[in-house]
């Protein structure tokens, strides 16, 4: 007969409660690992699915995922002249937080280089890619917008035409895909009054300038649209992305562009590496630290529980010794209970995790490899936790039965 199981069956409530507690702790440990994997996947999903081989960003910067990167949209035209490249596009990305339907809507505004890029590469769960140059968006499911919903951003309404999933920025906010023109309009939208004041100030500056006095027509120009003023550059973009044509050597093409002093170029791998080593790395260390602490806590809690369970049985253990039970039988009793609590906790964590993790606000990815490692940790945990109880049980004298 198995003494460990007999005891567990007799004290079922207590064991179940303990296993549930340990299970919840293990679920958090598991979740921490899953959150890290999720961060990694989220961070790289956009870069991987956008299908660009080269990222041309503001000179000296680490690109739009790491910091603010601004390059003139004219760089796109220059990149087009480089042989061996196809699919040269502008890339625009910035985060906004607006009110929509009475709640805060935080999203990454992502510009697609219309008309070459209509978002055909975005994995859609509903709807369609963009089909016109303005006022349409494809949004990530996490933004909670329905197909056909209208969102007011700046001075315009945008209609949701497609829904994607898993597309989030490095901050975990859902991405909304606009055309680059719309994205710029949202980014550089200013209230009418601000435009009016800016035009007046511009006129004032021109009036004071000798040039303005000599050519009065400049004054008319100065109060016109910004786009109509030759001296003002069109609004910048975050980056220009391009694919390398089949047969061309990405490294060679990259080296060519790298010679331009005003921009910096990254390959896709470098871009991913930057993402991972930047913000994700810190999160990894942070989460790793928490996992270690939690594992230690769960070991201590288990050790204490196993210890008290053993203390409760100490008279029975003395009796077993008096009857001549071998140490192995007594160690087995305690160790098996510890392993059982750990094992049930682990299964519970797995089961609860399956249920709970998909409901987490950010992606949690549980990989089989991680589960295996955790199983190993739990076994080690249980063995360590039982040591205290075993030590106590070994030290009890059979004559304790008589007292």
């Amino acid at each position, binding site marked *: 007969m198995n*003494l460990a199981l007999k005891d567990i*069956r*007799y004290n079922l409530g207590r064991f179940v409660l303990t296993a549930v507690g340990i299970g919840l702790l293990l679920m958090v440990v598991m979740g921490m690992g899953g959150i890290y994997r999720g961060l990694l996947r989220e961070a790289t999903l956009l870069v991987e699915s956008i299908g660009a081989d080269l990222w041309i960003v503001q000179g000296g910067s680490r690109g739009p995922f790491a910091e603010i990167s601004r390059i003139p949209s004219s760089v796109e035209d220059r990149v087009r002249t480089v042989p061996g490249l196809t699919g040269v596009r502008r890339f625009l990305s910035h985060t906004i937080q607006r009110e929509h339907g009475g709640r805060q809507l935080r999203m990454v505004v992502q510009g697609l280089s219309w008309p070459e890029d209509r978002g055909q590469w975005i994995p859609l769960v509903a709807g369609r890619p963009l089909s016109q140059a303005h006022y349409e968006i494809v949004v990530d499911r996490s933004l909670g917008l329905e197909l056909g919903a209208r969102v007011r951003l700046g001075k315009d309404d945008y209609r949701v035409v497609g829904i994607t999933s898993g597309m989030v920025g490095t901050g975990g906010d859902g991405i909304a895909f606009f055309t680059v023109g719309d994205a710029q309009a949202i980014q550089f939208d200013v209230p009418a009054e601000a435009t009016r004041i800016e035009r007046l100030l511009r006129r004032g500056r021109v009036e004071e300038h000798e040039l303005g006095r000599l050519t009065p027509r400049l004054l008319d120009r100065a109060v016109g649209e910004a786009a109509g003023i030759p001296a003002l550059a069109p609004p910048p973009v975050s980056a220009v992305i391009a694919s390398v044509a089949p047969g061309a050597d990405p490294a060679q093409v990259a080296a060519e562009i790298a010679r331009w002093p005003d921009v910096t170029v990254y390959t896709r791998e470098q871009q991913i590496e930057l993402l991972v080593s930047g913000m994700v790395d810190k999160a990894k260390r942070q989460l790793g630290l928490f996992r270690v602490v939690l594992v230690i806590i769960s070991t201590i809690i288990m050790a204490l529980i196993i210890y008290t369970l053993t203390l409760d049985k100490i008279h*029975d253990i003395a009796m077993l*010794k008096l*009857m*001549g039970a071998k140490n192995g039988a007594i160690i087995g009793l305690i160790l098996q209970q510890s392993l059982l609590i750990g094992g049930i906790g682990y299964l519970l964590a797995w089961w609860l995790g399956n249920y709970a993790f998909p409901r987490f606000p950010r992606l949690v990815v549980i990989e089989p490899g991680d589960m295996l490692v955790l199983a190993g940790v739990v076994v080690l945990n249980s063995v360590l936790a039982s040591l205290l109880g075993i030590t106590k049980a070994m030290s009890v004298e059979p004559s304790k039965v*008589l007292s």
Partner: protein
Amino acid sequence: MKNPADTLAVEALSLTKIYGSGNTEVVGMKEVSLSLGKGEIVALLGPSGSGKSTFLTALGLINPPTSGQIRLGGQTVMDGPKELVDVRAYRRQHLGFVFQKANLIPFLNAWENVAVAMELNGVPSSLAKERAMELLEYLGVSDRAANHPNELSGGQQQRVAVARALANRPSLILADEPTAALDSYRGRQVMELFQKVAREQGAAVVVVTHDHRSLDVFDKTYEMEDGKLSEGIIGSHHTSSPR
């Protein structure tokens, strides 16, 4: 004449036990000697604190004497506090204990409490269960075999404990006031059972008891006083001259 090693079940040679040390020193027993043949059943009487339990647990290899020797089946197993054999294995294979309290394992039911003693000794579980049920039957508690100790009366628990002590057919049974929790009928029955086990299995039995009505089942009566053992006469409980 037979070899004494064949007929002697247990021999205590000048056992002394001193508890504590310095000015808290207490003499538990003093130069106690006793030989018990196979199939012999003896009673141990004496006032409280006289050292009966000390002596019994020393014989049971759970309370090592300060000096003196214990021989079991012709083999010296204790030399002073020094263990000369694996005492745990010895207890498992050759000794049976019954105490005033039943000391059953609370998470095992009645038959499991009996069977566990056999399983610890390597008896296959089906066989152990079978014999456990037989013993419980014999002791009149087979109808409670599936109940846990907390569902049994004190007397029922004690009978399960007796069954457990007999489970491995021990060569030496040590009982410390085993019938204190039983009514006189059941108490007598247990004493007769010990006698029967002694006769039929050749086990040596030492019973500490205060129950003078059952003294007729014993071959000899010993009395302890202030840690000293002396042989008494059946039917009387006052000290006779030391051997």
